[in-house]
């Protein structure tokens, strides 16, 4: 179901497994930001199985690329990817959102291996990324800071503070990905607070910016590669247009909502849908 032309069969399989992990976690709690997890799974597959350098057995390895989850409610998606990457044991999936679990519903740095920041309060990640990127440059490191945030976070003034600071300090070691699924708490993001034309705005703010279909693995791979290889001393932004619920047709079609309700019997149906869409 991941819209790959077939060149990225391995990534498509990774994305399938990330989606599957996320649905299984959603079933544990009977809820969760599952529609977001499904929309961002392709980006996470490319991040963790194409772009990022890391050691699964040593999540704090100095030589890793940093990955910041600014939209902490996407934790269910990141846990799913971290499990697929071998950073979190797959058996912890059963603990998602439970007491004493390392997998709280909102991502927090102290709880989870591979979780670089505490989210929950939106709009923090880019600012932390600015400091990490400055720190890596100070250390002479060639590692990068990847930061994922959501289109709703564009409403936060602090995000634009960080966008200005990253350009001012020429932080070409930041690759930010904004998930434009056009859905936030009170409705479609573009109606809650307009942010278009987003590419023009970001370019005007001094960022090397690409806009891609965030559910097209080939396009996402190209965008990550271009962000990495770009020559100018500018921070890099990937605007990823995604589809809420991607990969589970009945969730894709469901009336759009920030927090999609999934009935108890539907988790199994969602897994079946993912299996049906899995590339042979």
């Amino acid at each position, binding site marked *: 179901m991941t819209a790959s032309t077939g060149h990225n069969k391995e990534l498509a399989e990774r994305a399938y497994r990330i989606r599957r992990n996320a649905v299984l976690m959603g079933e544990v709690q009977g809820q969760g930001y599952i529609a977001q997890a499904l929309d961002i799974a392709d980006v996470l597959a490319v991040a963790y199985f194409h772009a990022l350098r890391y050691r699964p057995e040593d999540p704090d390895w100095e030589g890793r690329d940093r990955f910041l989850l600014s939209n902490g409610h996407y934790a269910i998606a990141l846990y799913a990817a971290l499990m697929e990457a071998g950073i979190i044991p797959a058996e912890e999936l059963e603990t998602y959102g439970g007491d004493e679990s390392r997998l709280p519903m909102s991502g*927090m*740095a*102290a709880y989870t291996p591979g979780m*670089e*920041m*505490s989210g*929950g*309060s939106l709009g*923090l990640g*880019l*600012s*932390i*990324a*600015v*400091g*990490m*990127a*400055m*720190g*890596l440059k*100070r*250390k002479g490191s060639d590692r990068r*800071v990847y930061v994922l945030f959501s289109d709703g976070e564009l409403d936060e*003034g*602090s995000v634009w*503070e*960080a966008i*200005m*600071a990253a350009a*001012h*300090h020429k932080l070409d070691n930041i690759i930010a990905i904004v998930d434009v699924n056009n859905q936030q708490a009170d409705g479609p993001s573009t109606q809650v607070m307009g942010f278009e034309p987003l590419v023009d705005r970001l370019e005007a703010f001094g960022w090397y910016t690409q806009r891609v279909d965030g559910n097209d693995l080939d396009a996402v791979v190209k965008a990550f590669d271009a962000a990495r290889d770009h020559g100018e001393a500018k921070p890099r932004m990937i605007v990823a247009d995604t589809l809420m619920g991607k990969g589970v047709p009945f969730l894709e079609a469901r009336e759009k909502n920030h927090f999609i309700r999934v009935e108890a019997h539907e988790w199994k149906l969602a897994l079946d849908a993912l299996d049906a869409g899995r590339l042979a």
Partner: protein
Amino acid sequence: MTKPVLTSSGKPRLTTSAMIASIAAEGQRTRPAPFGHALVAAAKERPEIVGLTADLGKYTDLHIFSQAFPDRFYQMGMAEQVMFGAASGLAAEGFTPFATTYAVFASRRAYDFIHQTIAEEDRNVKIVCALPGLTSGYGPSHQATEDLALMRAIPGMTVIDPCDAHEIEQAVPAIADHRGPVYMRLLRGQVPVVLDEYGYRFEIGKAKVIRDGTDVLVISSGLLTMRTLEAAAKLATDKVSVAVLHVPTIKPLDTATILTEAGKTGRLVVVAENHTVVGGLGEAVAALLMRNGLSPRFRQIGLPDEFLAAGALPTLHDRYGISTEAICNSLKAWLAG
């Protein structure tokens, strides 16, 4: 002080109601920019120290550091949120950021960033803020009357309210050595020197008796320790004996020393602070005493729970009861009552 400058109409030009009016009294010994010079000294020992400011380097004395270590200084623009978030990121990469602005902007505008990206993530960031309490005549926008209450409410935050240049010089290397987030109030510019005469040494988490006395125990921090020492000297000529317990670390509180001193019977206990009476050292001490079954006569010297006026600092300090004269009057009245 030098001869007053006259305006074109022949009146003395007011110099005390500016945004960053000096708190030094006429003739008082001062040292310039103690924070900036102490940070330069600490940074020579510790290459991991970096400095950040939100367009207030000159007004937090961080310019001394930025001149000495231009490549270790980050100008973040007039944007406190990204400054504290970036400080968190630098700390995550192993650096020890000293981030400066005015106390109002750290404690009010950027509170969530300090709470979430620094304290909750336990990042080793030093937040150093000028214009604490009522040290600006500019009005409530610049009067950080509630910063200690806000900062001490954050789990894991060490909160320091130093008295003078002597203490700031010692506190800077101490907080650089300390692992964990710190909020420190900053007196900047020409900063009075007082505590060196008492052989005082700053230690994080330690309250110290600066002066002993039998009639009243004043438990104080920051600027109000300086003022209380002046008041104590004046009252001594009236045969009023004032003890001063200086508590520069608001959190964690030196509970043992406070309980020992407040537990000595027969003394009026007064907490004096350059801060609203809501949620600062006064209420922290009151709760501590109650929890431990101590009930001495207790009074607070502090700023009222209201938005303070703009004006000349000496006038405002008199009006709100934190000038030396006002402290003398309060103590005498309470002892008489």
